[in-house]
């Protein structure tokens, strides 16, 4: 039996907790993440893109530079005045890329948050209860899983009109079935652990068990999927905008920039190169980040 060596006398929980602090799990995970070089590269690239997107209003003016036409300066190749050149209407491409980042990231993340909410509820319920409820929910999801993401989003926009909010919701709903699957399998992985049964044995209600015991232990795989699906969402937005059903010009979006630059591609490749590279690096960064998170959070490596 261990000696129950106690600390100096205490009266409250606070004092005691101050003496024996919790080990910071996040800190350890952060250190492990840092060891993965490609993941760090992904994080760095992503942070740059994020910083640029956030700082957009300070970098350049929306009205004067991004949307204002300037025919005199159209189709200029990259140079001193315009680092990425100008497009077919004389607008500075760099400024448009920067603002495009804002749109892509904002809608991309918001859409995935919508998916996550739906996925947590549906996937969590299906995974926890199993049986008939699981079959019902999952067969419902299967119907939507058959359709490509773009098509689903398209259908919703066509039905409800093309606004930013609708676009967010459309993409969010389009990705929900995938998320439900991810949440469901994560929940099923956790559900069979004895501590879940233990929670039941001490009288916890299902609601509490799911919220406090099941979901917190599923965070790992879910976070990984969030990062990867944001990448997909951004691609979907670009695809929709490219075919004219997403963000409409003159609002800059990488997809619609590719679309409008298509005709000039041969002689003025810089017009499509910039948005293309932007999409490429954003997706790359998110994928590297997601893979890095997966490696860091893999429970097998923990012990």
């Amino acid at each position, binding site marked *: 039996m261990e000696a129950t060596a106690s600390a100096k006398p205490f009266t409250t929980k606070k004092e005691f907790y101050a003496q024996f602090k919790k080990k910071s799990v996040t800190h350890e995970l952060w250190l492990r993440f840092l060891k993965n070089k490609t993941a760090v590269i992904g994080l760095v690239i992503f942070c740059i893109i994020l910083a640029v997107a956030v700082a957009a209003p300070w970098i350049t003016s929306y009205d004067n530079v991004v949307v204002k036409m300037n025919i005199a300066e159209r189709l200029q190749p990259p140079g001193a005045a315009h680092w990425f050149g100008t497009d077919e209407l004389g607008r500075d491409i760099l400024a448009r890329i920067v603002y495009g980042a804002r749109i892509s990231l904002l809608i991309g993340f918001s859409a995935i948050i919508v998916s996550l909410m739906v996925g947590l509820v549906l996937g969590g319920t299906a995974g926890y209860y199993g049986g008939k409820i699981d079959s019902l929910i999952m067969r419902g999801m299967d119907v939507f899983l058959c359709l490509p993401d773009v098509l689903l989003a398209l259908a919703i926009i066509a039905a409800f009109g093309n606004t930013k909010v609708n676009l967010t919701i459309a993409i969010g709903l389009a990705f929900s079935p995938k998320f439900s699957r991810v949440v469901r399998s994560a929940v099923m992985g956790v559900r069979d652990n004895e501590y879940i049964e*233990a929670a039941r*044995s001490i009288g*916890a209600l299902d609601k509490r068990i799911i919220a406090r015991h099941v979901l917190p232990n599923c965070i790992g795989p879910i976070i990984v999927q969030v990062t990867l699906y944001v990448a997909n969402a951004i691609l979907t937005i670009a695809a929709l905008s490219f075919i004219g059903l997403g963000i409409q010009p003159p609002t800059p979006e990488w997809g619609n920039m590719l679309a409008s630059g298509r005709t000039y591609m041969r002689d003025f490749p810089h017009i499509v190169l910039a948005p293309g590279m932007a999409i490429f690096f954003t997706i790359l960064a998110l994928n590297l980040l997601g893979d890095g998170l997966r490696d860091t959070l893999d429970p097998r490596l923990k012990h």
Partner: protein
Amino acid sequence: MGEILLEVKNLKKYFHVAAGTLHAVDDVSFTIEEGRTLGIVGESGCGKTTLGRTILRLIEPTSGEICFNGKDLRKLNKSEMRFMRREMQIIFQDPYSSLNPRKTIAETIEEPILLAGLIPDSDKRFMRVLELMGTVGLAQRLINTYPHELDGGRRQRVGIARALAMNPKFIVCDEPVSSLDVSIQAQILNLMKTIQRDMGITYLFITHDLSVVNHFSDDIAVMYLGQLVEKAPSETLFQKPLHPYTEALLSAIPVARIHNRHERILLKGELTSPINPEPICRFAERCNQCMDICTKEDPPLIEARPNHFVACHLHKPMGS
């Protein structure tokens, strides 16, 4: 002492599987007196784990009665049953999966107290957690540690503290020391015995390890393929087993001795299937004392000697 705390009558748990009906627990009946320990032994597939969970209604029984302190548990609704859970707790086998990896041990031990609303004041509750940690021999400085920072023995102590948090009368111990090293097993068993003495707890001790159950239990029940085949006080069971399976089981225990070794009784064949079993003695195929009647009728559980029950055609009820 002497008061019957738990009475199980004709308890059955059947599972429906593709191949038919799996008789996990088949018509099991026994009683446990307050403050005593009943050991349930058997090998894989005998149903002892299912039995433990069914008694607590963590798995819903198919039929039968579970009388705890006079109340039939099957008649209680969900919230009444949750209330009852304060008196009936469980200690799990695997110290690695029975604790939530994201909760500190203080949070794990505190949760039952919180849920039952027994101590509303946060500081007082905290004191109770410390008290429980002391009871199970965990140093106070471990209060904010996570399960993965502790070894198996300490984790199991956390599980015990959690089970004790609501001051239960009855604890089902599902192979509580099987996953631990031998030297740690002894520590935990001694701890559990001390707790029983000090708090008057009744244990249902489930295990496959016969030497441990002998040491720890007052009475022992042997299970085979879902049925109770023998029940007797520990000393009697070990010295004068009546059922051929019990005899084989006892003789199979590896003995850490090189002199006075006995000849092993080896069983023929393998376990028969618990799915759609025939109404004959389920041990007949492997029994070296099998008679003709054994392949025709399922033997009932009878009291062959005072307080010594057995389900075997070789024995007759007392006084007949």
